[in-house]
Each structure stands twice: as C-alpha cells, then as structure tokens.
C-alpha cells in the first residue's frame, strides 16, 4: 500500500527527510511486537534479518518437492535427536501433524469422503467440549473427527480426545493415543484440558455405542453418567454436540463372540459380514459416505461451577445434548442419498 505523503502546512522541512540523514533502522518487527533496534544494511533490514529474508527467498525459489524433502529431513533430525516438545498429557504435536494425521488423511478424503458441517460452532480459541455419537466397532469415528477439525477449522485446532482405560492398557495403541493428544476419560483430565483452554472430545456412549449390533444403528445409547457435563460445567466451557453419520456402516456388527471377549478381556469380539470369515481382508472397512456435523454450542458458563454438583441439572443437560445429537442424526440420515454415496 503506498504511503500518503504529508504536505507540511507551515513550510517547514518534511519530518521524514530529517530522519533520513540518520542511519536507517531495520524495519523488521520482532516477535514481541517491537521494532528491531539495529541499523539497516540493505533493503531497510539489518544483517540478521536480511539473511533471514534471503534464506526465505531461496526457500521460496526451491521446487516444491525439494522444500518438502527439506521439511521431512528437518523432521527426521528432530525425531532422531529428541528435540520436540511434549505437553503434560504426552501430546506430541510435531508427530501428530506430520505423521499421524497425514497417515489417516487419505482414508478420510478418498475413502470415506468425509463431509464436515457446522465448524463455525467450534470456538477459535478457549476451552470447549465436543460430544459425539460413537459407532463403528473400532473408534475410527474419533480419528476422523480429530482430522476434520484440524484440516477444516480455520484455527487448525487439535481435538484432545478422552479415551477408555482399555486404550491406555493396550501396547502400541497406548503411546500412539497419548502422542496424538488423547488422555484417559476421567474427570481430572477432562477438567484440566478444558480449563487450560483446550478443545476436548468425548464419546460418552463408550463401548455400548461402538460395539452395538447393526440392527440398532443410529440409536444413541445411554450417555454414561453425565461426567462430561459436570466437567464442562466446572470449567465453564460450551458443549458442542457432534453427529457422525457413516461410521455405523464401516463394520456392521451382526454377532458378538462373548466367550472369546471374556477370555481376552475385551468388551466384545465382533462378527461382521466379512470378519472373521475373510481373514485379514475382513479388516477392510466398508467405504461408507460420512457426514460430521457440529451443532450449535450449548453454553454452560451462565450456570456457574456450583451447577456441577446439582445432579438433576446435570441429568437434564446430558439429555439435552443427547437429544440434539439424536435429532441431528435423523435429519442427516434423511438427507443422505445412500450409505455409500
């Protein structure tokens, strides 16, 4: 934008020309918002910022693949030397953004063709609790929701999921869950996340929802004990209802091997039309078309933190959230043309 020229009214010298005689200062703004204090060498920049600019220009001139390669190389170096930050919950943003989310992105975009609606209902900053329906035998719906918010929300927020104890007991899955930002679904962790301004996600139906038979698809199960509502009330953050359509059809459960489940200590061992009949091929999910819709946030801050100790209010609020999700599910199902398109 061209700067407006100041015409002096009293005929005195232009103020800028007197300044020009002194060595010009670097025009770069520092991280803390103040101007760089060193004198400029060329292009109105000090030597340090000039080198930074030249490097940035060189990077911009690089072909795309080369920039990616350099990025990947820097990532590898950080991984090998352990130079990446971890938050108190064990969330590794570097790994999540560069590897974990990238790994499931094709699944979301090409396979399930996830359509995300109502992202404006998730605040750009501050704590909020996303509450969603759970389905699909294995919690792919949670991963898809996390990716949808990160990819499509303007603030690129990470959804910090609250997972079952089984997740954190299972080898391989436990560290991956922690690194991708999940933590145990308990009141302490939920409140800590929410009050520190994170976006948390819960699937309050738990195993009852994810492991229900195909005949009961899109019928919401009991919403736990409403612990998520009290956590939101204590932290005074809004509850964002989230309805996921499509996850029910990826592995339709037609049976449950209860004896095996009890032996292995799993909540259920599913039998689907393809599993275990087709062996490993049965692990391939059906390519259903997904819609994830975020509903209008339900504010809790007006109720005050004492409301968390009022069981009646907590029950009512839990029911309200559940009802919103159920109604949205019915609406989305009517809009959907077919399971796969």
């Amino acid at each position, binding site marked *: 934008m061209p700067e407006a020229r100041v015409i002096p009214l009293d005929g005195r010298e232009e103020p800028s020309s007197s300044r020009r005689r002194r060595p010009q200062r670097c025009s770069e703004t520092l991280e803390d918002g103040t101007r760089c204090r060193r004198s400029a060498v060329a292009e109105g920049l000090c030597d340090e910022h000039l080198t930074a600019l030249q490097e940035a220009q060189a990077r911009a001139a690089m*072909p795309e693949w080369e920039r990616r390669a350099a990025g990947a190389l820097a990532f590898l170096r950080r991984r090998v030397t*352990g130079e990446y930050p*971890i938050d*108190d919950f064990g969330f590794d943003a570097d790994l999540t953004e560069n590897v974990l989310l990238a790994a499931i992105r094709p699944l979301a975009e090409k396979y399930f063709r996830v359509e995300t609606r109502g992202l404006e209902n998730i605040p750009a900053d501050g704590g909020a609790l996303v509450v969603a329906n759970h389905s699909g035998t294995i919690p792919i719906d949670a991963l898809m929701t996390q990716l949808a918010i990160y990819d499509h929300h303007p603030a690129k927020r990470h959804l910090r999921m609250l997972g079952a104890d089984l997740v954190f007991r299972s*080898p391989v899955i436990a560290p991956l869950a922690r690194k991708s930002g999940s933590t145990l679904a308990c009141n302490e962790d939920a409140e800590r996340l929410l009050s520190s301004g994170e976006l948390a996600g819960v699937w309050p139906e738990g195993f009852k929802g994810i492991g229900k038979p195909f005949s009961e698809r899109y019928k919401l199960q009991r919403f736990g004990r409403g612990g998520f509502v009290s956590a939101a009330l204590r932290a005074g953050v809004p509850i964002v209802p989230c309805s996921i359509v499509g996850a029910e059809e990826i592995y339709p459960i037609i049976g449950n091997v209860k004896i095996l489940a009890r032996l292995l200590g799993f909540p259920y061992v599913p039998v689907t039309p393809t599993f275990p009949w087709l062996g490993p091929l049965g692990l391939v999910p059906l390519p259903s078309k997904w819609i994830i819709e975020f509903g209008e946030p339900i504010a809790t801050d007006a109720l005050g933190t004492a409301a968390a100790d009022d069981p009646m209010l907590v029950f009512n609020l839990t029911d309200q959230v559940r009802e919103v999700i159920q109604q949205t599910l019915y609406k989305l199902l009517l809009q959907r043309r077919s399971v796969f398109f």
Partner: protein
Amino acid sequence: MTPTKNSSRVVLITGVSRYLGGRLASLLAADESIERIIGVDVIPPRQDVGRTEFVRADIRNPIIAKVIASAQVDTVVHMSVIATPFGAGGRTAMKEINVIGTMQLLAACQKAPSLRKLVVKSTTAVYGSSSRDPALFAEGMEPKAQFRSGYGKDSTEVEGYVRGLGRRRPDVDITLLRFANFIGPRIDTPLTRYFSLPVVPRVLGFDPRVQFIHEDDGIEVLRRSVVDNHRGTFNVAGDGVLLLSQAIRRAGRVAVQVPSPAVSVLGAFFRRAGVVDFSPEQLQFLQFGRGVDTTRLHTDFGYVPEFTTLAAYDDFVHGRGLTRYVDPERVAQVEQLVLASVDRGRTVHA
C-alpha cells in the same frame, strides 16, 4: 501461611550419609541462624558435611529418642526411606529400615516436647503407575492401583505414620514432600544408571511419560522447608514431562524394545549383575509412567524449580558426559550434507 525465619535451631537429619542428606547437611551448616545440625546414619558420611555433628545410630533403635531428647531437637528431617533393596541387603531389610525405622523415629518425635517441625522426603511413587492414572496427580488424589510391595508401598505406609503423628501432635508443622525422580550430574539413582546403559531396554509397545526433579532444586526445596514454615503436602517436580523414548534419544542412546515378560527377566539379570536395580514396581513405571501437578509447590510453597524436567535431564546428560552414540551435531551435519547435495544436483541440471 507466612514463612517465619529462623524457626529451626537444632536440626536432625536422618540418612545424612546418603547423597541428598549430605548435601542438605552441608547447605544447612552454612546457615548461621541454625545452631546445631545433627546427622544420623549407620555409616559415616563420605562427603563434606561442614559443622554437622555425626551420630552413628540406626533409626530402628530406640537410641534415636535419646539423641532427640538430649539435643533438644526442634526440627527433624526424615530422609532415610530407601528406594531400592540393592544397597540395603534385600527387600526384607529395606522394608525394615523404611517402615520400622520410620515408626521408631516418629515415636521418638511424638515424645519430644521440643519438636516443632517435621520434614519428610517422600516420593511421587505413592501415586503408583497404572493405565487408569490421570495425566497429572494432584496432592489430594489416591493411587488407582493397589501396591503389592516395594518403594511405593513403603512410602505410602511411611506417609500413613506421618499423618498419624500429625493427628497426635497438631502443634508440629509437618511438611511432606513428594519428589519426582531425582536426576542431575552427580546423583546416583536406579534411573540415572538405567539411562547410562549403553543399550536402554524399553517395554515393547509402551512409551511412558517421566518427570524429573533436578538435584539442586530438590535440595533447595528441602532447605526451604527447614528454614521457612511450609505446612502441608507438596509434589516436587520440574515443569513438563518427557517421553521415555524422547529421553533416550536426547541422551543419544539406543533403545531396544523388549516384551514386558522379557523385561522382568532382563531386570533380574541386571539386578544380579549389580548394574541396574529393576523392581517390579519400576517395570510398571517403565510401562505407564507418571506425572504430577506442581501447582501447589508454585503457589503455596512459593518455589518454581529452576530446571524444567527437560532441562534437568539435559543437565544430567551433559554433566555425566554420557557418550552420545547418536550425536545431534553429526545428525545436523548429515542433514546439511543431504540438502547441499540436493542443491548441487539442481544447479547442475539447471
């Protein structure tokens, strides 16, 4: 609570011949406002403890009561709860030193009219380590899994006896400090020995969060507990957490993942070889890790550790001069080399 200066005149430290006890004694010895410092242990201290008077006594023996009474001790710092059966001569001896020793010491404390303050060095191991743990334990939380044996169980029992004394002697200010794993350039713990192994075994499929307290910070917290009044229970740990895999990488070590049953076998082997002491409880820790909330230390106690968990760990790596098999400088060099060759390739083609 307003800290009142010079509340302690005669300080008794148990476990003075161990590293932390000795360092605390020499630090207090430099403080003019403290009249006498009495160090108690079964072996004489190896490090310089200044003007500390050493009394060779076993806290399991009633003689400790005579020491407290005759010297008019007003502050007792209990630091001789030991973490490993390694140096103690077996688990039975360890339990006896920890539990019976504490009972005997606290019985003596209860009978001492001069006593005003009790500082107990406990551990965050009292929170246990399981898959059902919250991300961070606050002081008011209970462990999620029951202990079978070991340091955590001993410490839980010790804390129980300390609380008992608190009920019977409400006039005594009790400071219970739950320390995370100590680390630093000089201190020697099972965990520092673990990280010093050339190849570090990890439990296959698990990557626990670990938290450290730098030895200097730990000593400072103990010193402040003696010279100021800080009644209550406090978690003491550096800010932030590290993942075990990350810690091993930062030390430039090579991790090898072994299935959990094999880790116990390996642990038993290492224990016999006298290299590292792996108790079943520590294996649990290597599987699930632990984190504690230090808000109360920051706000109520008024101390923010100078070293974060990460900084404390890095200080340990540099201070020990651990050989980095994977050197970060070399890695950066390789990166530059690859970038330069790519760049050269491009200019040649253009």
